[in-house]
């Protein structure tokens, strides 16, 4: 009997010990009278520093940042917590393309009462992403990701090339660069980055989803996207651009050793280039994306996110108050741009927070002027409620296409994506137009 007690006791003691450790972070503060504790899931770097600015000035509403692994894992966890009925944070960073998914899963709260008045502080395209064109407000825009083109000006100069103004120029430059040095590429077609391809399609005028009354339309295989896919298919087939994914050690090495001499990135690109190829600083130039039609400058978005209040939050008013501060207060915008390295969506961010170029582009004082121009040229685009199905279908279909290096497979991949998306939406019961 004695032994039994000891064994059980040891086990219990071990577990009690660990459970005590589990609560050490937050248990004591939440008890104070009138004080509200909020948790905030975000993957932006140094978000805890930005939030410190709020916590010191707002003693009654304390926000704790839980850093997440990026947009997809965070959404997955949130949706699981919503399904389970508990475990969601109060505040959540949400990529624009995930907002329809989150709304459809009833995961984020409508804060039109608390935050509706912020509309005029943001560009219409960003605001539209958080309202989905309705009267509801499902978040406050935090950052946007207008696409930009980065290129190695030293390599361009050496070959006597001009920065490409049009996609035809880009193709011609890519050819010349690869002919001059068979190891060099102006870019790569990345089958692993659906957000990147979506941005390029958006620039060409595509909008893959649409709302018509009470039904959805799906238009992934439209003429604009076909144009983009066959353009890249041809370049890959000719072998003048690479067909390997971005963000791999291989790609990093290529940025470092000067075999990738251009990148179709976005406004947050300087941080990526600096982190991956710091020693190439000063050799890059940022420009607008090459254009399809120079008479009508257009652009697409890659990345960008809003801050939303989750449906499970018990303190929606306070949470809305916090996210309004986070995304509109000048001090917060400055911290977002400076510490978290994001490009704030708020209209007046350019004048208050983005006064000097990012360190990696200190040679280009007009960096944010170009970024602003890119942002203003951004085409409208509507995301659907099953964007992840479309995106994972992109990974697979374009992965095969890129590996085959056959132009025809690129356009065929769009048919696959369109079908996968429609099949999934029908199966879930969404009403589809046509």
């Amino acid at each position, binding site marked *: 009997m004695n032994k039994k007690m000891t064994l059980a006791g040891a086990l219990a003691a071990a577990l009690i010990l*660990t459970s005590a450790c589990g609560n050490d972070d937050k248990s004591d503060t939440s008890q104070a009278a009138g004080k509200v504790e909020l948790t905030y899931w975000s993957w932006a770097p140094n978000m805890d520093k930005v939030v410190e600015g709020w916590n010191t000035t707002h003693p009654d509403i304390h926000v704790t940042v839980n850093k997440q692994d990026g947009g997809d894992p965070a959404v997955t966890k949130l949706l699981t917590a919503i399904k389970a*009925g508990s475990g969601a944070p109060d505040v959540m960073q949400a990529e624009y393309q995930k907002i329809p998914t989150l709304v459809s899963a009833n995961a984020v709260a409508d804060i039109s009462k608390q935050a509706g008045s912020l509309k005029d502080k943001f560009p219409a395209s960003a605001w539209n992403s958080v309202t989905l064109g309705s009267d509801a407000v499902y978040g406050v825009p935090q950052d946007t990701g207008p696409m930009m083109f980065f290129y190695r000006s030293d390599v361009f100069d050496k070959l006597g090339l001009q920065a490409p103004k049009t996609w035809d120029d880009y193709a011609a430059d890519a050819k010349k660069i690869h002919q001059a040095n068979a190891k060099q590429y102006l870019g790569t077609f990345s089958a692993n980055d659906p957000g990147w391809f979506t941005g390029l399609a958006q620039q060409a005028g595509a909008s893959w989803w649409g709302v018509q009354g009470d039904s959805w339309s799906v238009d992934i295989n439209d003429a604009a996207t076909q144009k983009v896919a066959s353009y890249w298919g041809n370049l890959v087939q000719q072998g003048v651009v690479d067909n390997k994914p971005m963000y791999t050690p291989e790609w990093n090495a290529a940025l470092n050793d000067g075999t990738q001499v251009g990148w179709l990135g976005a406004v947050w690109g300087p941080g990526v280039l600096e982190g991956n190829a710091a020693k190439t600083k000063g050799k890059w130039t940022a420009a607008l994306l090459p254009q399809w039609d120079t008479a009508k400058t257009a652009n697409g978005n890659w990345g960008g996110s809003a801050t939303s209040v989750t449906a499970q939050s018990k303190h929606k008013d306070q949470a809305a108050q916090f996210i309004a501060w986070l995304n509109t207060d000048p001090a917060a915008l400055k911290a977002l741009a400076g510490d978290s390295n994001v490009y704030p969506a708020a209209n007046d961010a350019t004048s208050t927070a983005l006064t000097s170029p990012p360190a990696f582009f200190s040679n280009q004082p007009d960096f944010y002027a170009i970024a602003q121009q890119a942002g203003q040229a951004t085409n409208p685009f509507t995301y659907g409620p099953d964007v992840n199905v479309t995106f994972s279908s992109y990974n697979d279909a374009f992965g095969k296409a890129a590996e085959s290096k056959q132009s025809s497979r690129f356009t065929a991949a769009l048919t696959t994506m369109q079908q996968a998306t429609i099949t999934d939406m029908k199966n879930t019961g969404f009403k589809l137009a046509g």
Partner: protein
Amino acid sequence: MTLTTAVPVTPAAAKPAPRVGSRGNLRRSPTATVLLLLGAAYCLFPVLWVLIASTKNAGELFSTLTLSPSTHLFDNVRTLSDYRGGLYWRWMLNSALYAGVGAAASMLVSAMAGFALAKYAFPGKSAIFNLILAGVLVPGVLLAVPQYLLLAKVGMTNTYWSVLLPSIISPYGIYLCRIFAAATVPTDVLEAARIDGAGDWRTFGRVALPMMRGGLVTVFLFQFVAIWNNFMLPYIMLGDDHLYPVTVGLSGLLNQGASQPAMYTSVVTGALLSIIPLVALFLALQRYWRVDLAAGAVKA
């Protein structure tokens, strides 16, 4: 590697080595030596690579000759240690806690169950054993989501418990313990203890447990490694990165999303450091590493 030679090779107490004397008399075989060294080289090569890679700074990792070491190991360790106020070391402590406490509890629970299954006859024994065997075959990855959904119903997600409790049950550990108990605890000894008036718990604690010790260490190590290396369960269960074990933490450093560069140098250095405790544990306890998967079958 000198450490390893210091550790005696004698197998654990469970079974006496059947042959000791015959070794010294054998002729050396260069072929055997070469083959074993080739095998060792194959297994050590990636470890050597990570050792070298962790001495490089971010630029060098992607630009210098892959096998030429650099001098930035301590800088890398410092950068990693500075990351968000030493979070990496908290992850290591969490891993140690999950794996240490989880494996100890698992060992005890498995020992009790294995002992009962090996040494008692009782109604339902076969059904219970078959049930547990079936559990061996279920992939842990599949269980993480339903486990989350069920734990969320009792509000236990995002706590140390949510990772610890599911880690304690190990059908494989029970299966091994049953084999160890059957092979190392003679029934007459138990009968003798019983005749001396010892109760079941006393017999288990004073007689069976010490006899099973060698096997139990194996089960402990086995479960320790399984928990330490587990990714999916903590990945799903935890939202607060102060509770992460090192596997989930490292994966987060790698997957920062498109707008952030992956922290490859920190990941590589972190990967190296995260292997060290396990390697140390292996070397310290390697004489216990005897996994007798089929001992029961051999005897039967």
